[in-house]
């Protein structure tokens, strides 16, 4: 749409760190490139099939001649995500940006894009290329399309609230009444999960005694891309000597679970 859009896109590429983090707040459901109007007619996620549909209408007052319309697909969208059987005939392109290239043959033409999975809608680049190789005119603009939200990492404690131990009646092994379930969701592999303790104990109690007899065990997990559930079990194993450091009172073992990229 703007003459310098391509240059701006290249600049964006260099600054891709934080600038692609958010879905744009302004919808662009219709745009003009020269005398061509592009409209996003439909956007839908089919949960039962786990795929997302984008339907565009590209229209002009005159019949197109050697003209292609390109819809940008961000770096997070791989070619195999495109459902070729359901998507309008296309070729995968890397120029002027990664995306799908559709050939215009009629004044008003509908292009359907089906992507596997659920995709947010956000501002995507598009291009209209007229002419043949070496003698092309390129117009670039923006339209709502499949959007790469960007990477994210999350930690949830999905179960295991209010865990407590039975009264400690003597030396031995005491199991907590239930386990905690942690859920880590990461857009990349290689994340790390750790924990730290913060004790609140009665006056006269030794923190080292509590730390020594407390054992936290995590189920094995693979720090891969996607979602991982981790079970955390707790035991207390005091010996007779430990009781000397455990006066009567309320004890709280605060556990901070920390997740981050590697």
């Amino acid at each position: 749409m703007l003459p310098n859009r391509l240059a701006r896109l290249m600049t964006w590429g260099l600054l891709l760190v934080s600038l692609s983090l958010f879905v744009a707040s302004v919808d662009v459901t219709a745009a003009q490139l020269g005398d061509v109007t592009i409209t996003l007619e439909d956007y839908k996620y089919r949960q039962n099939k786990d795929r997302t549909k984008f339907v565009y209408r590209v229209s002009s007052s005159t019949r197109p001649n050697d003209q292609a319309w390109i819809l940008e697909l961000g770096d997070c969208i791989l070619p195999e995500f495109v459902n070729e059987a359901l998507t309008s005939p296309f070729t995968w392109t890397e120029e002027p940006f990664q995306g799908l290239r559709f050939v215009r043959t009629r004044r008003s033409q509908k292009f359907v894009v089906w992507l596997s999975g659920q995709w947010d809608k956000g501002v995507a680049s598009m291009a209209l290329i007229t002419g043949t190789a070496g003698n092309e005119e390129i117009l670039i603009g923006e339209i709502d399309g499949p959007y790469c939200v960007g990477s994210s990492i999350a930690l949830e404690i999905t179960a295991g609230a209010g865990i407590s131990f039975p009264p400690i009646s003597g030396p031995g092994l005491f199991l907590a009444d239930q386990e905690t379930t942690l859920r880590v969701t990461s857009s990349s592999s290689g994340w790390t999960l750790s924990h730290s303790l913060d004790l609140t104990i009665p006056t006269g109690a030794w923190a080292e005694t509590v730390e020594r007899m407390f054992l936290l065990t995590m189920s094995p997990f693979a720090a891969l891309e996607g979602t991982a559930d981790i079970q955390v079990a707790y035991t207390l194993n005091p010996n007779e000597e430990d009781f000397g450091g455990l006066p009567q009172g309320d004890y709280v073992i605060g556990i901070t679970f920390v997740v981050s990229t590697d």
Partner: protein
Amino acid sequence: MTIRRVRALFLILAVVTSVNLCVLGVRWSPAELDLAQDPGTEETYQLLLTNDSDERVTLTIYVGDWQRDENGINDFGVPMNGARWEFTQAFSSGDLVELRYTVQLPDEGSVDVQGTFRSWSPQMIESIVGAEQISSSAIEQPDPYVSSLWTTITRSVESVDADGIASIVLTLRVGLDFEGLTIEETYAQGIQIISLDAAGGSFDTVNRSNADWISLSHPQVTLDPEESREIAMTVTMPPDYSGSSWSIIYAESRVVATGDGSGTQILTLASVGMKVFTTAPGTEVMAGEVTYVREQTTTPLAISAAFSNTGNVQLVVNSRLQIIDQTGEVVRDVRFSEYGRDYFRILPGSQRTITIADEADMPPLPIGIYQAIFSFDFGGDSDIAGVRAFRVK
């Protein structure tokens, strides 16, 4: 002992997760930031924080330091703008131990510092006494040894040279016997700390921290379930910086719940850290070296190698082990992988040790002499490799 057991009957010990929440969750987007920013500039970036809990929660946001150890394990315990010493050995009453390190004073010529130390068993936590402002006017020789029942650590400024490098001495005087010790020094601002003599303990600091350059728009936010909030992060790069620096921004849920009638207070904490790297464009130096290659065992075969990042940016390293027999035949050709990735990441100034071992069902190497070639591709002009000959008997 009987008394202790009776007392123990009344002991109520609770482990924490949460009482009044079904799901407690925090999400950062992006998962990590790798920023290119010119020295001497100030830039603001938007981060997205989401409450994935099914309740309204308050999230505390703060910056910290981190590093990776030799095994690639993340260490989040290094104090921000500070240093940590750890000792595993036992100390006896009357012991006198001196640790020495230097700091580069800022332009104003002085900097404040606070420190603590913690013995592991029996456990005690105390503050470090002595000079709390490091400057040339604080120069003072350590006190002569005075016997005491109390264990103390005293900080003294030994000297400050013309370049503003202050030499600090920490003097540990042991009152009662104990085992294990952690010492932490925390400065009021980012400052380069170099250990001169760790007295046999381990020393850790993050000299390439950018934590002090980062300011956040919100120290705390309260979010409804599934609500997201943009957090502005402003990075002020110093004028004379080269290479990369890093830190981590935590978003931590803190839920204070009432107890179950026994008076027990329960805290639940879930924390997600977003690592932030800042790199001065055009100043990157990618360099590495193989510190050693050695065979751990020959049957089954396990070969270790250490790779050091001698540049000034984080490296992403692919590694490969080839075993060649006396005829020149390659009898093993294995690529390193962990966490489903075929690479590891290593911070500048760090060393990473990796071991590649035969799978359990692999036949052992026949008796003979072999050569192990451990090669590393870190994106430099060419791979580097370490070679080790070994014999299988």
